[in-house]
């Protein structure tokens, strides 16, 4: 008999349910602690700092930030910060252009992949490769592609009489276009992957029956596929919207938010004022405001989905 056996109480000593509850509590404990460590405590700290003018440059440790107390001034400033609002609109613009294109391209491709065809597996693997590429590396890829002497201009030159020497990343509009193209390249595969998984689950016999009854492909799509796919489409779009709102890595490597502030999205703006201006009290206020807005948005979205 081993030590462990000796220590274990007789089976009847402790009811199984209680045993399970205790183990369950212990098993979830590490995750609970990590969540507290990253969510609750930092948020309280953030709230505190956001009510002050504190900055690491003051030389005071953060617990004494009250010496720089300024009440809700940071939150008032936030409404008058034209750069902040421009960065928010810019982010929304990127999301509004990139996500629908990704969705439509992904859906279109997924529909072509429902039936079997030779080479399907290889094609599938290649198509999802872009989303595996480290986003920072993808940023560098597109940085190279969009150089004025780079391959994009070289390809365009095949179709124009004069060689194209467009400096994509140095002009506000084209820089934004380039950034959006990079996002579409990297994340259309995600839409494709998720939507294909959904399409495969649409019962084929229903489609065949509808076809026999004379429904056109468009009718079949609207009356059978879309209702079946609704939840999955919402998941796919929601995932991409959430991630696209955070857009940073690829864009930052390609343009650094420039030229000027032409591609300065919300994350880039916060990064800039965090690392250059070092006004951390104000950054904390912006960050908290974003968290509140996003949480409200999420609650609203979930309510709607449940209904």
């Amino acid at each position, binding site marked *: 008999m081993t030590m462990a056996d000796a220590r274990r109480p007789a089976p009847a000593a402790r009811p199984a349910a209680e045993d399970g509850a205790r183990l*369950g509590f212990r*098993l979830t404990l590490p*995750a609970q602690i990590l969540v507290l460590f*990253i969510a609750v405590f930092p948020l309280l*700290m953030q709230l505190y*700092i956001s009510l002050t003018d504190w900055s690491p440059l003051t030389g005071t440790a953060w617990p004494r930030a009250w010496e720089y107390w300024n009440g809700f001034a940071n939150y008032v400033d936030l409404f008058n910060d034209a750069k902040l609002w421009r960065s928010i609109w810019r982010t929304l613009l990127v999301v509004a252009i990139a996500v629908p294109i990704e969705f439509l391209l992904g859906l279109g*491709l997924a529909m*072509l992949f429902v039936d079997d065809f030779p080479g399907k597996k290889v094609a599938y693997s290649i198509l999802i490769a872009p989303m595996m590429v480290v986003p920072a590396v*993808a940023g560098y890829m597109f940085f190279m592609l969009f150089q004025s002497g780079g391959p994009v201009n070289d390809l365009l030159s095949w179709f124009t009489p004069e060689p194209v020497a467009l400096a994509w990343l140095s002009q506000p509009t084209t820089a934004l276009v380039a950034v959006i193209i990079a996002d579409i390249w990297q994340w259309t*595969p995600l839409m494709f992957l998720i939507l294909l998984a959904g399409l495969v689950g649409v019962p084929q016999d229903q489609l065949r029956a509808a076809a026999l009854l004379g429904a056109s492909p468009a009718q079949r799509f609207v009356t059978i596929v879309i209702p079946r796919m609704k939840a999955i489409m919402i998941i796919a779009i929601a995932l991409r919207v959430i991630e696209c709102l955070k857009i940073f890595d690829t864009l930052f490597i390609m343009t650094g938010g420039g030229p000027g502030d032409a591609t300065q999205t919300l994350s880039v703006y916060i990064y800039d004022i965090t690392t250059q201006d070092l006004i951390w009290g104000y950054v904390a206020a912006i960050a908290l405001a974003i968290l509140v807005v996003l949480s409200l948005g999420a609650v609203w979205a979930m309510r709607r989905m449940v209904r």
Partner: protein
Amino acid sequence: MTRSVAFDVFRFAVILIALVLALVPILWMVSMAFKPVAEWQATGAALTWVPRAPTLDNFRFLFGQSGSDLIVALDRKVGKPILSSLLSSGFGTLIAMSAGTAAAYGLSRFGSGANLPLALIQLRLFPPMAVMIPVMIMWAFLGLIDSWWGLALIYGIVTLPFAFWLMKTFFDDMPKEIEEAALVEGCSRWRVFTRVTLPMMAAPLAAASLFVFILNWSDYLIALLLTTREWVTIPVYMASLSSSMTGQLYGAKAALGLIAAVPPVILGLVIQKHLVRGLTFGALKQ
């Protein structure tokens, strides 16, 4: 569905175009990685899609061997950033998977920690940028700035939602009869978990770990804010491979990009069939 030849041709053409578009940016980087300095910035008629004089100089340069046409010398070689990326992503995965698997089992079997699913989704919703001020302050206080272990800790927390959700769906799918049989045999709950459940879940555990590792390996922003010099990761180091003195070191950067891109692409193909489940927090199974 009636399938016509025209449709097959159409599908073939569209998929071919999609494949080319997916591959060209990657292949351009591969090509650049093997180009000698002279071809880095060739434009117009001189622009080369395939290197005319392919060379390994860019890789040699990164690892500090001279003999290339590059006049500049690296003040820091690539070995340490690769080590940093490996250690921080690896141990971050270990933290996320340990805490995530345990919590997923606790919730799946005993209903403990019912607040966790929503809390973890919210954690994922937050842009990392929006919690970085307190994290930077805490990490500075704990002496974790510019260390791989500091990065590993934050990676473990950031990817915990994925580890938890993936493992929870795997546990939910697992038949409970075997566990119940072991319980009847007189095993304790803990013994059932470690000796029966976990071994049975070896394949899902491996897939989830690889998935979480890819996520950690892909980070740029967090490492950019939390490392400064000693333990910068590959993406941060890559951005430092240009300066006003040297200009862009196109080929060297491409070679490094290739080194960074290869592991996740291969691992991603290995766990292909779990990708949908992982990316949708288990909402969708393939």
